[in-house]
């Protein structure tokens, strides 16, 4: 009896959770010239408007390559860092661990304003690589969390075996260690990409006149609520879902590594 009550309550809560998605999908296919729900008919007009607008396309490309560059940089810095944190023995290790995870705890607005102040002085506002650097700071905690979890579960006997058989340390790293860590690497890289691709607050300050996709969406929402945003939202949801499916298929689940 109370079990059924619980299920009913959860049904309502799930409805609340899914409501925004349930609204955005039909809205993006609406044939009405303005916001109307439920839509009177179906059309691709909002998707066409997105595809025909060079500003939207421009912003999308910028977000894609900034996200890609962020993933590469976050892996290049975060993977060695994770090795140090798990396998190294040196004073201040705990401190560095805290520092690497701090960007999740420190409110993003503070990081944004602080970096904005610095970049304004360095004339880096509007530079895509400036945004990549700031996004990497934000993505680093994800990479460190996923990679340290992967490294803790790692069977070092396999490396010792390779070295015992005469492989050099570099060869062991390239042929044994990294391939075995591939699921963690895939998850870490994709999470870093998504964290940058979805990021708005830092971009709001640092992007300058060069729009990223979230910033362009923010500006549009501020000016007018037009269903083009719904179409963009749907594409963003589909892209993120695709990435999460890739993580589920080729990566190491966050659920397993959260421990």
């Amino acid at each position, binding site marked *: 009896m109370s079990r059924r009550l619980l299920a009913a309550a959860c049904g309502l809560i799930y409805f*609340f959770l899914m409501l925004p998605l349930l*609204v*955005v999908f039909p809205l993006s296919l609406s044939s009405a010239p303005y916001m109307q729900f439920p839509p009177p008919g179906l059309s691709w007009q909002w998707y066409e408007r997105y595809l025909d607008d060079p500003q939207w396309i421009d912003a999308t490309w910028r977000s894609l390559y900034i996200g890609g560059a962020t993933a590469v940089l976050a892996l290049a810095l975060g993977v060695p860092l994770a090795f140090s944190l798990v396998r190294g023995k040196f004073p201040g290790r705990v401190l560095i661990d805290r520092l690497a995870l701090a960007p999740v705890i420190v*409110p993003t607005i503070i990081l944004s304003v602080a970096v904005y102040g610095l970049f304004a002085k360095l004339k880096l506002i509007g530079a895509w690589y400036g945004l990549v650097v700031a996004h990497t700071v934000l993505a680093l905690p994800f990479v460190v969390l996923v990679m340290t979890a992967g490294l803790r579960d790692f069977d070092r006997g396999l490396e010792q075996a390779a070295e015992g058989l005469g492989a050099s340390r570099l060869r062991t790293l390239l042929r044994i260690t990294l391939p075995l860590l591939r699921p963690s690497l895939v998850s870490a890289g994709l999470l870093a990409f998504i964290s940058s691709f979805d990021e708005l607050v830092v971009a709001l300050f640092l992007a300058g006149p060069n729009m990223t996709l979230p910033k362009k969406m923010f500006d549009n929402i501020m000016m007018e609520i037009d269903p083009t945003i*719904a179409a963009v939202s749907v594409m963003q*949801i589909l892209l993120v879902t695709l990435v999460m499916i890739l993580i589920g298929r080729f990566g190491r689940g966050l659920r397993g590594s959260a421990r």
Partner: protein
Amino acid sequence: MSIRGFWPATPALILLLAFFLFPVVRMLGYSVEAGTLDWYAKALGEGLYLQVFWNTFEIALLVTGFCLLLGYPLGFLIATTTPTWATLGFIFVLLPLWTSVLVRTYAWMVLLGRNGIFNRWLLDAGIISDPLPLLHNFTGVLIGMVHVLLPYMVLPIYGAVRRLDPAIVAAAQGLGASNWRIFWRIHVPLTLNGIFAGSVLVFVLSLGFFITPALLGGGRVMMIAVLIEQQVRETLNWPFAAALSFVLLAFTFAVYALAQRFTRAEGNA
């Protein structure tokens, strides 16, 4: 003293020092540039700004409360149902979590607006005669933030309920305890760490929230992050923005420190 395996950490360390620690410390330096604490006195002394801190605190507290109220049943259900249902339950918690905050906030604007979906339906159904004010106010911000932060509450609670030994529940049932009694006397006390972890996370994330209050509050609900942004971008008052940032940062760290202390004390007991 051996320093083994430190060098691989250096590139990341340089990045964190140069583009995280240094800019934050540099900005906080602005707040005491004049050699006085005047900007802090303004932030914490003037009624207008004190009100913003109070608003932020109040919203964070309410958001945490509502997330707990909605998140506990969800986490509990997912943790105690069959594996197939649990997977499905998980997907529908994670799907909104993966959707960008901006997209979700936009959807809430569409739902809650004066000519939004809710008001249209309620008007058409004849339940109300004037549109309800749901957007650009406290209610809108609250709904949007609870929606964004709910998954962060569900996941730790799920974990805590999973760790609960089912034998204890079975024993209580065998001894004739009612479901209600089992819930209050066994589930709640034994999942307190999950409740606590989720609440701290949601509360701290709420304190620094920007996107949702900026859009759903429509300038009328002032939270601390929105105020900081205004001070930097509109008023260009860096020292004051820095002082506000430092107060927010100190408060955030204080909550974390307190939470860690509490968790440790509980672990020792």
